[in-house]
């Protein structure tokens, strides 16, 4: 025991960690140069970033905001001593045309209407998306919003959306009355028939009559005037909104025990998912009128809306099917054991949960559809990409390339990135709720 010469009895004071392990240097060492491979990657990445910025920044910084034509841009840059093909961007085209790129040919004094429509869209979606922060009474507004949205964009008499709404009310009333008196199935058929008869036959008389009594309305705008980003967003929003109920029906049909119904739904979904959107747009632009009664003719944007809706519905059905599949079996069995019938259990137990799980999927479907709206430029609609061609056909801007593409890409990016971030946030929020 005695050969221990020295025992330390008190703790050593804590030493500072080596300089190379903490602070900025430590961080750099750990995160950028931890071994030779990482160092190589870091150096390569830095070089790449430098190259891109060195090429891009001088081009972007170009005092051409006020120029009125490409030739003027060239003069401005020439005066600055900047020569060559990539001397600098010509921002004049964005300055002159950005409003057109966003609103298309929508009448200038009515810009407030699309703006209001999209702001209200946020309000209408709030109770669904931020259910914890917003009073649920707003849901009434959400239910009415689908009638307000087209009215704001297309304008016209207020009685048209009211008539459309009345169709639902009448259908619902018929359904209730008949299903109480007889069976749910008959009630369903009766409701659908009453609504259809109302929309197809009676509503036009109603609108005419009400219009002559009290002509309330706003200036109508034809869908031809739609263009630019407004067109993209309108197509995206309408397609998703219309495809949601259709997608629910298809998803339920696909899961159903009724063989014929199931195969019709599977066939539809797989067909739509198996062909590119562009072929469906060809159908919209060339064939849809052939499929409808002779003499029917509605304009191309409406036809595109129909085809994009069908397209989105097939994808929506798959998203909702995923939501349905993710629900634990016990939920279905629990609903059955309570003695609820099929529709009751769907309405009260299954759908609310399945839809909630599906929201991130629905958002990403929306992003997909929104991006795919650029395809309408191929059939001659003036979405941002189509407009960029039209703008380049203006003698002043003939020869402009990057500025327009860059601007359009930037707007799409901002929109889609925001949406995808939001959907990730939702996903996280929903996840915690389900564990």
């Amino acid at each position, binding site marked *: 025991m005695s050969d221990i010469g020295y025992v330390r009895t008190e703790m050593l004071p804590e030493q500072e960690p080596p300089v190379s392990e903490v602070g900025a240097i430590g961080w750099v060492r750990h995160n950028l140069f931890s071994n030779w491979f990482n160092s190589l990657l870091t150096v390569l990445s830095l070089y790449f970033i430098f190259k891109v910025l060195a090429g891009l920044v001088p081009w972007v910084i170009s005092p051409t905001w006020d120029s009125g034509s490409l030739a003027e841009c060239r003069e401005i840059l020439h005066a600055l001593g900047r020569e060559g093909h990539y001397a600098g961007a010509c921002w004049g085209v964005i300055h002159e045309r950005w409003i*057109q790129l966003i609103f298309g040919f929508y009448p200038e004094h009515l810009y407030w209407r699309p703006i209001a429509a999209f702001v209200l869209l946020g309000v209408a979606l709030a109770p669904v998306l931020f259910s914890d922060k917003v009073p649920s009474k707003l849901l009434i507004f959400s239910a009415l919003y689908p009638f307000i949205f087209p009215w704001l964009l297309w304008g016209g008499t207020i009685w048209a959306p009211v008539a459309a709404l009345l169709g639902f009310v009448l259908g619902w009333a018929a359904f209730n009355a008949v299903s109480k008196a007889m069976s749910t199935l008959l009630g369903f058929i009766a409701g659908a028939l009453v609504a259809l008869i109302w929309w197809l036959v009676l509503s036009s008389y109603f609108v005419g009559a009400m219009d002559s009594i009290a002509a309330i309305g706003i200036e109508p705008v034809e869908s031809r005037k739609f263009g630019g980003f407004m067109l993209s967003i309108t197509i995206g929003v*309408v397609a998703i909104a219309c495809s949601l109920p259709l997608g629910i029906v298809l998803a339920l049909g696909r899961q159903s025990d009724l063989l014929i119904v199931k195969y019709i739904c599977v066939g539809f979904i797989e067909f739509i998912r198996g062909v590119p959107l562009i072929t469906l747009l060809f159908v919209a*632009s*060339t064939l849809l009128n052939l499929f409808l009664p002779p003499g029917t003719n*509605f*304009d191309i944007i*409406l036809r595109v809306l129909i085809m994009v809706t069908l397209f989105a519905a097939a994808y929506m059905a798959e998203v909702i099917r995923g939501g349905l599949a993710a629900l634990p079996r016990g939920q279905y069995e629990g609903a059955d054991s309570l003695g609820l019938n099929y529709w009751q259990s769907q309405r009260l137990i299954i759908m609310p949960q399945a839809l909630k799980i599906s929201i991130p999927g629905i958002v990403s479907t929306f992003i997909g559809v929104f991006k795919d709206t650029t395809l309408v430029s191929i059939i001659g609609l003036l979405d941002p990409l189509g407009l960029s061609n039209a703008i380049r056909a203006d*003698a002043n801007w*003939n020869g402009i390339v990057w500025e327009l593409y860059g601007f359009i890409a930037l707007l799409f990016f901002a929109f889609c990135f925001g949406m995808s971030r939001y959907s990730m946030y939702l996903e996280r929020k929903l996840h915690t709720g389900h564990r």
Partner: protein
Amino acid sequence: MKKTVFLGAATVAGLAAGVAAAGTADDVKARGKLNCGVTTGLVGFAAPDANGEWKGFDVAVCRAVAAAVLGDANAVEFVPTTGKTRFTALASGEVDMLARNTTWTFSRDVDLKFEFVGVNYYDGQGFMVPKSLGVSSAKELDGATVCIQTGTTTELNLADFFRSNNISYEPVPIETNAEAQQQYLAGACDVYTTDASGLAATRATFENPGDHVLLPEIISKEPLGPLVRHGDNEWGDVVRWTLNALISAEEYGITSANIDEMAAGTDNPEINRILGTEGTLGEMLGLDNQWAMRAIKAGGNFGEIFAQNIGENTPIGLARGLNAQWTDGGLLYSPPFR
């Protein structure tokens, strides 16, 4: 979630609005607007400006028809169509007429069942090459890369031309004129071929137009004209004679400047018939007697429209050439108003 009925409502609205009646002319009058199919954008012929207002040579024809039928040159809805969608748009009744530099061919007339009401521009397919290439004839283009616009007659003409001259080429199909121009300027193709008017218009906007030459060969006849559907002769007549009125107006010296003066009556009975001070030509068309006067007032006579949109004083700088009046050695020849 009952998210939307809009589809139902929209369909109803569409059905109510769109059920076509028998005559296009009546439809147009009932609608108060003329639906006119144009290109999605071609310099000088049709393009929207910053205010969304369409301008160009083809556009002017639409406006003249609208002025004749509806009395308002601005009562036109311009429907941009691509090479692919233009014929279906017309066949399905989405547009009432097409003024979209469309070549009058047998199969379009007979097989696709359209009626070309006349020719507003006599064109032909030509070639443009950079001067530095040192080519003086299209027959020297063996092995060249050629940019062509798809969806037009030009790609068929091109295939025939190279085949019959037994030389090879590499086609680069392109959707729009703007892209073709970009590829050509970057040297991705040696030659750009399309209608000579289009070539001249494109060249005019280059940074250095002098560095490029149009080859002397014109390899096809491209009579470009407005067209309507088969089977509605009344409407076809309206469009045809509006175009003829513009052409005759130039021949007889009726301009937008002196038209009011001339409308008071002149010694020339033909002018009087055109302007409606004599005879009942308008009524025969189902219009009033001032129809031609309004059409000419809308944008001037044929010569004025030409000069304003694509003529020598515009950046596009096309000479009249074949499109001069027959009295000046051109092909423009309107049948008499009698």
